[in-house]
C-alpha cells in the first residue's frame, strides 16, 4: 500500500496481504485524546502539530496518526468497520503520507503505457470515474483518490495504492460496467468499491501528466494546458489534505516537492459537464492529448 507494509487490527479487504520484514505502519485500536497538547492548528474536528494529527468525527470516532508510522482508532460504540476504514484510508493515511515526507496528491492515477497519469480535483469532479474509464480501455489503475509521490534522486514516482476504485451509483449505470463484485463504501452512501479489472500495478510509475478536473454547467468539454505560476498553484491546491501541510510542519518540504513535480509533469485544466453522460467522451479526449 503506497509502498508501505502495514500491520492492522482492522481488516482492509483492499490490501495485498503478506510481506516480510518490519512493518512501516501499525494500525491499532486505542485511546485517542480529545485535545491534542500543543496543537498548532485546529479546524472543525481536527487538530495538528508536527508529527501529530487527530481527527474527530461525531458518531464515528477519533483517529490519530503519529510519526508517520502509527494510527490509533478510538471508535464510538456502534461504529462499523466500513465507517472506520473510510477515515483510516482517507485522512489518517493522508496525514501519514505527509508525516513520512511524501507528496500525496489528491488524485486517482492510471498506468498509461508506462506513465502515470493523474486525475486530480475537488470532491465529486470525477477523478475515480476517469480512472475507471481508462481501466475499461485496458490501462490499469495505480491509485484511487490519493496518489502518493516519492522523490528518489529528484525523480517523483507514484507508488501503487488502494487497489479499488470508489464510484457513485449513477456513474456505474452510465458506464455500464460489468463488475459484479461491488461493495457499498458505507451504509447509506450510494458509492461502491469496485475490484480492479486488471492486475494490480506492482511497481512505482513515473508521473507525466496531471489533469485537474472541474465541473462546469456548460455542455462542452474544454481542456487547456496551464503553465507558469498557475500551473504551480494548481498542483499545490491539489495536494491531498493540503490544510494539514502547515500544521504538520512540512510546508517547506512540500513546496520543494511540488516544484520538482512541476518540472516533471504537464498540467491541464479540464472543464467537464456536470452530467455523467460524457465521461467516456472525456476519456477519449484525454487519450488524444496523451498520444499527441
Amino acid at each position, binding site marked *: 500500500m503506497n509502498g508501505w507494509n502495514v500491520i492492522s487490527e482492522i481488516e482492509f479487504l483492499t490490501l495485498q496481504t503478506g510481506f516480510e520484514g518490519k512493518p512501516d505502519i501499525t494500525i491499532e485500536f486505542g485511546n485517542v485524546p480529545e485535545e491534542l497538547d500543543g496543537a498548532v492548528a485546529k*479546524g*472543525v*474536528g*481536527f487538530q495538528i502539530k508536527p508529527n501529530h494529527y487527530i*481527527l474527530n*468525527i*461525531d*458518531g*464515528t470516532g477519533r483517529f490519530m496518526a503519529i510519526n508517520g508510522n502509527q494510527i490509533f482508532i478510538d471508535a464510538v460504540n456502534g461504529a462499523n468497520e466500513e465507517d472506520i476504514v*473510510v*477515515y483510516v484510508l*482517507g*485522512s489518517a493515511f493522508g496525514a501519514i503520507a505527509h508525516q513520512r515526507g511524501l507528496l500525496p496528491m489528491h488524485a486517482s492515477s492510471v498506468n498509461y503505457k508506462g506513465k502515470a497519469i493523474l486525475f486530480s480535483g*475537488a*470532491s*465529486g469532479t470525477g477523478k475515480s470515474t476517469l480512472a475507471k474509464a481508462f481501466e475499461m480501455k485496458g490501462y490499469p489503475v495505480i491509485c484511487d*483518490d490519493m496518489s502518493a509521490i516519492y522523490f528518489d534522486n529528484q525523480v517523483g514516482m507514484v507508488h501503487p495504492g488502494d487497489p479499488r476504485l*470508489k464510484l*457513485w*451509483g*449513477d*456513474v456505474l*449505470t452510465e458506464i455500464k460496467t460489468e463488475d459484479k463484485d461491488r461493495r457499498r*463504501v*458505507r*451504509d*447509506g*452512501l*450510494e*458509492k461502491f468499491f469496485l475490484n480492479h479489472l486488471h492486475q494490480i500495478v506492482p511497481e512505482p510509475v513515473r508521473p507525466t501528466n496531471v489533469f485537474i478536473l472541474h*465541473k*462546469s*454547467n*456548460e455542455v462542452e468539454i474544454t481542456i487547456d494546458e496551464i503553465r507558469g505560476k498557475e500551473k504551480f498553484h494548481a498542483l499545490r491546491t491539489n495536494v491531498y*489534505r493540503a*490544510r*494539514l501541510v502547515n500544521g504538520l510542519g512540512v510546508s517547506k518540504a512540500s513546496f520543494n516537492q511540488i516544484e520538482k513535480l512541476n518540472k516533471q509533469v504537464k498540467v491541464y485544466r479540464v472543464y467537464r*459537464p*456536470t*452530467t*455523467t453522460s460524457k465521461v467516456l467522451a472525456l476519456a477519449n479526449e484525454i487519450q488524444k492529448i496523451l498520444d499527441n
Partner: protein
Amino acid sequence: MKSITWLASYPKSGNTWLRALISNLISENDEPVSINNLVGNIDASNKKLIEKYVGLEVSEMTEEELQKLRPKVLQFLAEENEDGGVYVKIHDSRLIRERMGSLISPNVTKNGVYILRNPLDVAVSFADHQGWGIDKMVEEMGNEDFVLDRPNTGFNNRIPQHLASWSTHVMSWINTSDFNLHIVKYEDLTRNPTNEIAKLLSFLDLNHLSSRTELAIKFSSFNQLAEQESMGGFNIRNHHSEKFFRSGKSGVWKQELTPNQIDSVRGDHEEVMRLMGYW
C-alpha cells in the same frame, strides 16, 4: 462571534438578486460585480465550506455526519469574521433549528434578511431550475418533508437542505425572534427598488452607501445579470436548467400555470399567501 448576516429565502425567490444588489452597493467599482463573486457566495449548504474548515474529503461522509458538522463550521466562520462580518446565503427553513440543533443559531448571528416571492411565480421558476414538471414542483412546495439536493445515486456538491413546504418555510423565518430579521418582498423590490434599498441599507446599518443606490440597481438589473450569465456562465445554475436568470418578471404564473396548478398552490398555501399579501 455574532457576525453572520443571513441572506435567506426559499429557492428561486430572488436571493441572487438581493445578493447582487448588496454586492454592488458595497463595491467601490464602476463596473458590475461578477455574478460568481457576490456577497453570500458562502452558501451554508456548500460542501466546499465543510471541506475548507474540516480539511477532509466530504464525498464519503454520510448526510448525518455532514449535518452535524454544519453548525460547527458556521461557528468557525463566524469567529473568523468577527471584525468585518460575513454574509451567508441559506435556503434551509428554520425548522431545522429543532431538528438539527443550532444551525441558524443566534450565537453566530448578527442579523438576517429574508426575501420572499409569490409562490405561484416560485413554482414556475423552481420547476425550470430543477428540471421538473410544474405538477411535481407544486406538490413538493406543499410537502412538509421536502429536502433539496438529496441525491439518490450520485454526488451532489451541496448538503441536503430541509426546506419543508413553502408556507412552513416562510413562517419559520418571519417568526424569528432571537435575532433581527428584515423581510423583503420580491415584488416590492421590482416595483420600487429605491425605496426597498433604503430600508435595507438602514437595517444593515449601511446608510452611507445610499449614494450607490442607482448604480447598484443598474448593475443588478435582470438584463445585466442575464448577460453576465450568457457571457461567462453562472456557477449555481442547475444543469437541468438552460438559464438561471429566466425572466425575473412577476406574474408569469398567469401564463404558465394551469387552473388546476393555481388551485393547488392556493389550496396548499392560502393562509400564508393571504398573510403576505399574495391573495
